[in-house]
């Protein structure tokens, strides 16, 4: 069977006696970027090490372009790695670092020189070619690590938290630069990150992991529109799922305290009787008002933080905490009335239709 792209097939990895990754399956088409995202300890770095051949899986396969790499040593995999701290060789110059993989592969001197010159120009490092890694800024180091990994023209390029080592102030600009550089490669890119903005903005496919297992995978917009469960909703969208009951009149949430007319919500009235569903409340799903209105629910303001662009408010509605982003000034401890701002998604679960 000839499969194109990167296929991770039912992969499990053990560290000593603990299972770090469990039954992971993923497919990344050629030329696309996969972001694996999850809280620390979810197994995402282990997946990366396994693709690189630095950790041996207990079960499952890693296949790239139809070639089963599971038993191929790291040095023969054609997989480029940009480690989290960049791991630049401190005793070699920028040129020496980028050249390393070509030398190890026995590329002749002329071809090596030509390839390195091209990569130096591509990553805008030409003036720094003779510098030592210690004389570079964080962003420059990142580019050297990237150029070094790209030099071997890998079929898969792995990046472990590529922005974590950078000053937070620079991260935005570096992310854009990295995207440009990655966009110019033809290889499959796999990025591991704990930052949801990085995952959503850099990837074609986002995989959310938790406790060694895949929770959800899909395009950034798919995951953003329909997070699979409360964990993904919270982790990737900063949102909350609220259980609702749909009847012929309205959608009811918070034990009936909140009745939302169908006009305000993107949900179909059940054909008959009542149905259960869940409502995804994003920080910008709600508008706050001092006055009660149709389809509003009274809520207690637990916290209000001015963050410039807006005020982040934590509301308490019937014991549930809900985050809201608003432009209006609100005061902690007061009661406000919250109503739906746009048309948030309600997912009626058909199997749970009640009488």
């Amino acid at each position: 069977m000839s499969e194109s792209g990167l296929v991770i097939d039912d992969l499990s990895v053990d560290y000593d006696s603990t299972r770090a990754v469990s039954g992971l399956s993923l497919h990344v088409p050629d030329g696309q970027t996969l972001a694996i995202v999850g809280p620390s300890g979810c197994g995402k770095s282990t997946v990366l090490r396994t693709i690189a051949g630095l950790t041996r899986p207990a079960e499952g396969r890693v296949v790239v372009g139809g070639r089963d790499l599971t038993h191929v040593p790291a040095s023969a995999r054609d997989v480029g790695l940009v480690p989290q701290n960049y791991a630049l060789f401190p005793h070699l110059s920028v040129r020496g670092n980028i050249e390393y993989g070509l030398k190890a592969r026995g590329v002749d001197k002329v071809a090596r020189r030509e390839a390195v010159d091209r990569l130096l120009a591509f990553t805008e490092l030409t003036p720094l070619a003779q510098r030592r890694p210690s004389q570079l800024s964080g962003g420059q180091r990142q580019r050297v690590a990237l150029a070094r990994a790209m030099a071997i023209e890998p079929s898969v390029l792995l990046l472990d938290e590529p922005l974590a080592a950078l000053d937070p102030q620079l991260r935005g600009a570096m992310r854009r630069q990295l995207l440009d550089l990655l966009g110019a490669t033809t290889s499959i890119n796999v990025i591991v990150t704990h930052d949801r903005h990085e995952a959503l903005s850099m990837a074609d496919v986002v995989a959310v992991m938790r406790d060694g297992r895949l929770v959800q995978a899909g395009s950034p917009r798919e995951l953003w529109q329909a997070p699979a469960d409360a964990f993904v909703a919270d982790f990737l969208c900063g949102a909350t799922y609220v259980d609702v009951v749909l009847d012929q009149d309205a959608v009811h949430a918070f034990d009936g305290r909140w009745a939302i007319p169908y006009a305000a919500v993107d949900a179909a009235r059940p054909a008959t009787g009542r149905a259960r569903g869940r409502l995804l409340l994003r920080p910008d799903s709600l508008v706050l008002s001092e006055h009660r209105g149709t389809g509003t629910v009274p809520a207690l303001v637990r916290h209000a933080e001015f963050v410039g662009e807006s005020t982040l408010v934590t509301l308490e509605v019937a014991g549930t905490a809900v985050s809201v982003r608003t432009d209006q000034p609100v005061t902690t401890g007061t009661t406000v009335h919250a109503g739906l701002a746009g048309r948030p998604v309600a997912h009626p679960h058909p199997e749970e239709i009640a009488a």
Partner: protein
Amino acid sequence: MSGATARFSSLGAAVPGIALLVAFGVVPLAVLTVTALGLGATGAGEEPGLTLDNLTQAVTSPRLRQELVASVVVGIGSVLIMLVAGIPLTLAMSRHGGQVGHGRLTSVVFTLPIALPGIVVGFFTILMLGRTGIFGQVVPALGGAAYTLPGIFVAYVYFSFPRVIGPLQAAMSTFDHSLVDTARTLGASRARAFVSVTLPVVLPAVVQVLGTAAAVTIGGYGTIATLAQSERLLPLSVADRLSNGYQVASASGLAVVLALLAAGTLAVSRLLSAWLERRLR
């Protein structure tokens, strides 16, 4: 005031240490050198008066020159052998060090022998390679090897074992193994990654360990005191000059040479290590 006070007061606490160093370090070295020049106390059979003979005897007398060379060869050679065995060992320990008590136990086992006195090490060697030693009983050619240069060499290898492994382990514990992992993904074989990445990166630390261990080994007296029969090392002659006829000036000269040799080995290794380090930074 408080910032400056805090700084001065904590440096003030360091004064006893500095005073001790001066009293115990500078003064005796000066006296030793003066004595070696024939200007201080002299032994019964020695002429007072300025002379460089006491200092140059180690180079001019063929017997002493041979001792000097043997001291250097045994001191540095035994440490080098330990390094060849020790570098892969301590690297492996540092990579797998995270694995529960295991690493800790290994560390204790490997460094405990530092407590074994040189004299006990010499004794071991006699029991193994002496005229009635157990190896000698099995392979007659090895009987009495303890008293030959190869036997002394073996003894010093053992002597330097914990003096190399302990510091080497400390130095290797900070080695960034992701360098090797990265080299592997770039296509380097295990051997190539070791030679082209690991070795250059750990070299400054290795050179420093080598220097310190060699300096201690060169100056060590216990081992050679037990093994000296036909072969001799420099520390022995220092002691001999004192016990045989109390030749203070001559012994001082040899002591200065021995001290310079040991301290020089250390200093050269420090400089070399600092230079290599700078090349990495």
